[in-house]
């Protein structure tokens, strides 16, 4: 039997969410090691049938001790039990029983209405019974520790049954009522009971899984997110059940036990003592069971190892690089209402609305699909609101077509774009902008032949077809010069046409097809027709080629026909291409060529290749061309058919444009805008609530000429039994803010995202903002941060966290690699004699040297050690490096103040930048900052940022650089200062985003560098390798070295 790798996560109860993504990528990595992989999840899991691995639903409670099944809607229904219960409760007996709960009130309100003798007796018995009942309810130990049934009729039946049982017990008792607990104590008992039930449930589930799968010594069980009550339950289960001791356990803990920085941990020993004891109880179990303990960050590992119980090590946070690479570009489209079509009428007239109406009417008539048409035109166009049917909705838009960003916004929201104008006299720049918008949004289009947009798109046919057929087979090629041509005149005359061809140039005429008949080779899927224009025609003249392909089957019967239109640019020599799909049963083809607009022009080097390729290749790049009719109704009919055809091949066309975008992406263009992504739910802890204010500040502070900053936000409030109103309020405030922002500045992805959509956003954005609550993330990992590294995107993160620690640990190496020797202008090692201290009230403590230890600077909370250094002439950057001296403490934070001044001595401050660094004691910290223009000297200060102990730094060295290119302050991220208040955080985030936008290339390169350093570490493969590494195997336990603890559960 294959070794099994069983991943158990009781928090997986739905297909959305990070837990399942994590689990599946780890299992895929384990599978590569030859394991049979099994996923054990919560009993409430909604299996969509698309899971890669075997699923076992076992656990009732998640890591917070909550039951996900409780969050699902109750099963509705009205049962016989319900009716009986209502009948009993809403009756005279029920009235008496209810009144018995409030004797004082009842007596007060019923003094004037004395009860009958019988009722008085019943009432008295009810009072006694009710008190007994209340006492019994509180003191009854659960007969079993089984969780109650799911909400709904089953739960009600269970509760009614319990009530009746207790009531009978109460009535059967003579004597005094059980004492009632005070309310506060009731809550304690309730909590203890609930956690007890959760632990018992976990234990039973684990036993069922291990025994059911008959796991043995070769098998592994991995818990990627372990809770403390689960540890206790596991410990109990391992003691009592021999079978559970056979497999090897990997237990990962991801939540911090101590709050804040390590210098504050001494004061938290009492609250964490129970956690420590939980691990202590595992210690002796290690003699009989192989247990590995992990966290996913070094600071967390330090916390857990501080317990001095079982040893912990750090595992990487996994990010699946393959899923990221396979992700498409994000498209902001909603198909909730159906297929979205933008009808764009550039010349701007009443006809645009009429045109849109007609297309909508046709679509409703021809198709059962739901359509949503938006008619887009100039602001001056008069719009009509017409609801053609419930399936087709017309939404006139007043966005102007003059603004390219406006077009992009429109295209991003639609699946298909119809350009309705025949004569688009756009200049080249405008046309290029439109092509770019279509490519960036991957929107297939329907464009009139002869239109300048069509000409531009058709110019791309050749290179696109070349790429498409690179993986195909060429079955045959026919050149025009080798073919005998005939002519079919539209008057009906069919004749030889030797005059059509001369010097390998084919003459195209209006109202006449120059044609050939060809037999098709078996296996041919496409005909690839290429030719060149030879400079005929006057610039601006409309010229186009019509290609007709009439297929017959092997018996000679007519099969089908295809017509394609190409627009060529007059007066130019270009290569052109069109592809005709060959129907499967076709045996021969009649190929005809004519001119669309110009009566008589030549095309050169015409050839026709028979191709065999697996994937369908469209005729023309980016969509379909059509020929407008003489009348609007003809045109709308043609357009409607084109829309339906395009809709049928939508996925293919969209993919083509995405691929085209990917090809062009390698060329580094200066960015006119950068897109910042926010991924995650709208919790306060994630900093979502800062975003509206930050957007407002950016709008106010950045000029129109500067690189614009756009946002792509996931807006998601997970539904649960406990509604987080803060989240909903944040979302409402964001919605309000969006109304005052320019169109296109913010795009929204609503709701939970599946993995491809999540990765699509990550791939699409230029950077990721992670404005998390610093105090919660001092030691905790962040999935999105590691995902940004994997995606080579810079991130914006708070200082003083594990995230910034990762950045700081690599900064020196990055700067060493990025700074060339010849760029170093000068350097200083600041002697200790020049350091002084500056109190937080702004008063210098003393001008004397404050440190007596050679080459070390004291760093304190509440006052700043500073020095003052002249800036060498020509210096463009300052590169500061130093070491922490405190060996035992791994999370010291130092705030560095860079204040440039306008003269050599103490003078006016020109600019000030604060940078906070944090990290382990062996880190060489490195920061590079640009020198302020006109800066002649710098006031450089250090103080302790977040903890309250004094420490020393050493080897403070400054390199002055002269370089023309910007360089990242730290690699791969903008690390912003979190000073606690929301206002200050927003200010820092705004500054950070502006810095990123103005220096994006530098940060993108540094993110790329960071990816090369860490991309291989943050992978599921690495995680599994580390778990399975031989040196990680738990040592055979020698009783003399372990079992220092004798802690036992009760």
């Amino acid at each position: 039997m294959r070794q099994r790798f069983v991943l158990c996560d009781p928090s997986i109860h739905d297909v959305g969410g990070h837990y399942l993504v994590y689990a599946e990528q780890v299992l895929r990595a384990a599978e590569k090691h030859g394991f049979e992989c099994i996923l054990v999840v919560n009993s409430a899991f909604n299996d969509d049938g698309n899971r890669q691995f075997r699923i076992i639903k076992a656990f009732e409670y998640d890591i917070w001790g909550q039951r996900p099944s409780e969050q699902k809607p109750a099963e509705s229904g009205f049962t016989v039990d319900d009716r009986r219960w209502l009948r009993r409760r809403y009756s005279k007996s029920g009235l008496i029983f209810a009144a018995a709960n409030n004797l004082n009130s009842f007596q007060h309100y019923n003094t004037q209405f004395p009860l009958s003798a019988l009722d008085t007796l019943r009432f008295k018995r009810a009072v006694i019974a009710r008190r007994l009942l209340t006492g019994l309810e509180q003191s009854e130990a659960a007969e079993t520790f089984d969780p109650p049934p799911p909400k709904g009729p089953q739960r009600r039946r269970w509760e009614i049954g319990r009530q009746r049982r207790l009531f009978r017990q109460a009535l059967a008792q003579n004597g005094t009522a059980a004492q009632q607990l005070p309310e506060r104590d009731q809550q304690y008992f309730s909590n203890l009971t609930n956690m007890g039930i959760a632990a018992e449930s976990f234990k039973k589930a684990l036993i069922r899984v291990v025994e059911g799968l008959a796991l043995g010594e070769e098998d592994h069980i991995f818990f990627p997110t372990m809770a403390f009550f689960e540890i206790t339950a596991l410990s109990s289960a391992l003691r009592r059940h021999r079978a559970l001791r056979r497999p090897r356990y990997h237990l990962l803990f991801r939540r911090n036990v101590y709050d804040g920085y390590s210098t504050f941990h001494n004061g938290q020993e009492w609250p964490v003592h129970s956690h420590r004891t939980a691990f202590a109880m595992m210690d002796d179990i290690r003699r009989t069971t192989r247990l590995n303990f992990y966290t996913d960050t070094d600071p967390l590992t330090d916390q857990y190892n501080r317990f001095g119980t079982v040893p912990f090590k750090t595992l990487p946070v996994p990010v699946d690089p393959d899923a990221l690479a396979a992700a498409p570009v994000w498209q902001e489209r909603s198909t909730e209402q159906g297929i979205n079509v933008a009808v764009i009428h550039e010349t701007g007239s009443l006809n645009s609305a009429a045109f849109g109406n007609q297309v909508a009417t046709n679509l409703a008539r021809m198709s059962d699909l739901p359509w949503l048409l938006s008619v887009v035109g100039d602001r001056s166009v008069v719009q009509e609101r017409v609801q053609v049917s419930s399936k087709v909705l017309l939404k006139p838009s007043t966005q102007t077509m003059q603004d390219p960003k406006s077009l992009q916004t429109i295209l991003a929201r639609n699946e298909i774009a119809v350009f309705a104008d025949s004569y688009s006299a756009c200049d080249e720049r405008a046309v290029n902008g439109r092509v770019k918008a279509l490519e960036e949004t991957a929107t297939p289009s329907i464009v009139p032949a002869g239109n300048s947009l069509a000409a531009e798109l058709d110019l791309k046919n050749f290179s696109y077809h070349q790429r498409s057929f690179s993986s195909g087979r060429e079955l045959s090629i026919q050149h025009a010069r080798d073919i005998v041509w005939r002519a079919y005149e539209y008057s009906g005359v069919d004749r030889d046409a030797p005059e059509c061809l001369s010097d390998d140039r084919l003459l195209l005429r209006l109202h006449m097809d120059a044609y050939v008949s060809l037999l098709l080779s078996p296996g041919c899927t496409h005909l690839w027709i290429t030719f060149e224009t030879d400079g005929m025609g006057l610039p601006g003249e409309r010229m186009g080629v019509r290609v007709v392909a009439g297929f017959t089957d092997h018996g000679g019967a007519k099969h089908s026909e295809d017509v394609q239109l190409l627009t060529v640019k007059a007066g130019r020599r270009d290569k052109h291409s069109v592809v005709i799909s060959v129907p499967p049963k076709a045996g021969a083809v009649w190929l005809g060529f004519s001119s669309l607009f110009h009566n008589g022009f030549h095309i050169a080097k015409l050839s026709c290749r028979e191709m065999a390729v697996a994937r369908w290749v469209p005729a023309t790049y980016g969509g379909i061309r059509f020929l407008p009719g003489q009348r609007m109704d003809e045109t709308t009919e043609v357009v409607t058919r084109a829309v339906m055809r395009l809709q049928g091949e939508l996925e293919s066309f969209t993919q083509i444009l995405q691929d085209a975008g990917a090809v062009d992406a390698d060329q580094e263009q200066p960015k006119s805008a950068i897109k910042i992504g926010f991924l995650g739910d709208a919790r306060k802890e994630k900093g979502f609530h800062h975003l509206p204010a930050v957007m407002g500040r950016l709008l106010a502070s950045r000029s129109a000429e500067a690189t614009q900053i756009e946002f792509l936000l996931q807006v998601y409030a997970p539904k649960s039994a406990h509604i987080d109103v803060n989240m909903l309020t944040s979302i409402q405030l964001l919605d309000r803010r969006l109304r005052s922002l320019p169109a296109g500045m913010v795009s929204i992805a609503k709701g939970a995202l599946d993995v491809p959509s999540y990765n699509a956003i990550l791939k699409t954005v230029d950077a990721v903002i992670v404005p998390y609550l610093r105090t919660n993330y001092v030691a905790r990992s962040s999935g999105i941060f590691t995902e940004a590294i994997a995606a080579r995107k810079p991130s914006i993160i708070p200082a003083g966290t594990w995230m910034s620690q990762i950045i700081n640990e690599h900064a020196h190496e990055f700067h060493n690699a990025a700074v060339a020797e010849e760029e170093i202008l000068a350097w200083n090692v600041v002697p200790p004699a020049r350091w002084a201290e500056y109190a937080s009230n702004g008063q210098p403590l003393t001008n004397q040297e404050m440190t007596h230890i050679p080459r070390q600077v004291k760093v304190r909370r509440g006052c700043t050690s500073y020095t003052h250094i002249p800036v060498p002439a020509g210096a463009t950057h300052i590169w500061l490096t130093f070491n922490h001296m405190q060996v035992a403490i791994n999370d010291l934070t130092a705030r560095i103040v860079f204040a440039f001044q306008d003269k050599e001595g103490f003078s006016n401050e020109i600019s000030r930048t604060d940078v906070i660094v944090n990290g382990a004691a062996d880190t060489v910290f490195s920061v590079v900052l640009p020198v302020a223009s006109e800066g002649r000297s710098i006031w450089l200060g250090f103080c302790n940022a977040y903890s309250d102990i004094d420490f020393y730094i050493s080897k403070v060295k400054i390199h002055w650089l002269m370089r023309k290119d910007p360089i990242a302050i730290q690699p791969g991220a903008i690390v912003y200062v979190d000073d606690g208040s929301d206002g200050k955080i927003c200010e820092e985030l705004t500054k950070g985003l502006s810095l990123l936008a103005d220096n994006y290339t530098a940060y993108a390169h540094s993110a790329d560098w960071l990816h090369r350093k860490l991309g291989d570490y943050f992978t599921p493969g690495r995680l599994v390798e580390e778990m399975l590494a031989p040196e990680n195997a738990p040592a055979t336990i020698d009783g003399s070295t372990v079992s220092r603890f004798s802690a036992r559960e009760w």
Partner: protein
Amino acid sequence: MRGTGVKVVGLADVALGYGYQQLELMVTALAQKYGAAEAYIVEPDMKFRRQMHEREGLRIVRFGSRMPPHDETFHIEYNIQIERFLKEVEPDIVVFVNAAVLPALLLQKRRPPLCIYYMLESLHHQRQAGGENFIRLNEMAKHLVDLVIVPERRRADHDLTTLGWNDARVVEVLNLTHQGFTPPAVKTEPSFMYAGTIGRQTQCHYLLDSALSGYRIDLAGPAYSEDANQILKSVQERNNIRYLGVLSSLELDAVRQQYAYSIVMWAPTDINQLYASPNKFFEAIASGVPPICAPHPQCAEVIDEFGCGLLMEDWSLGAFIEAMKEASSIVGTSRYEQLVANCKIAVEEKLNIPEQFKKVEMALEAFV
């Protein structure tokens, strides 16, 4: 069905005339639509709410109880009486507002042909009033309900999802009580009214800020809590704020038009408060008194659509002060006149009972 003609019954959980009028308006509208022979409102007898109100076209049936309202025994006794009443009347249409009256309906052997759940209160509110029992009653009632009418669809979305009523037929009817627009008096001075529950949950403490000391503000409403009493105590120390006591709906209607603005806000501490659909917001608009409103989604939608009020940027004190400053600065200008004119447009186009009832009529087309 005995007798001839349609019978409509509305089941109220509080006495008429105190609190929402929506139930009686809905019953009246339904009675008119169906040409009802008999239309009833069943109400409880409540201490402090003794006054018996009459309504044209409606028979008000009041059930007494020895116990005070919101007490468990009151709830049981009231339902016992409603059950008897429904059995006797055999209504064709029943409208109920919350779980407080559901037991009587659930116990009927004869199901009314049309049963409308006018869900004026969220599940959160109902849980506060009646505990888990009220939630259970909601869970039991799905088979009974033909149509759910809600004042705020976002709040209802949460509640109906919790109950598993995803396929229920739902209509949003704004919390209106007026038939049309009442032109206000011309205002030349800024003056502000706040009418509603006094307390921190309605952010009344903002009114005490020194930045607002120059504005004339009147308060009216009940003060139930300790901090409400503290606020009222502080009010006494202010020259610019008056407390008018608890006013009935009629009294409020009479005085509201004296003010330039009406203040509408709740701290978004729970889903009810965030997704508020406040009567007084619509009442203010109907009176031509533009509201100054926190950005509760429904209120924001209405103001965005019609420009009939001023929206705070968020729920902070700073945003409130900015809104008050802006409001004060435009009284007497054409901008203020436009706000008032927009109130009229809003009422005539959308914010009136007949217009809102059309939505109910469309939904009822499925029922004969």
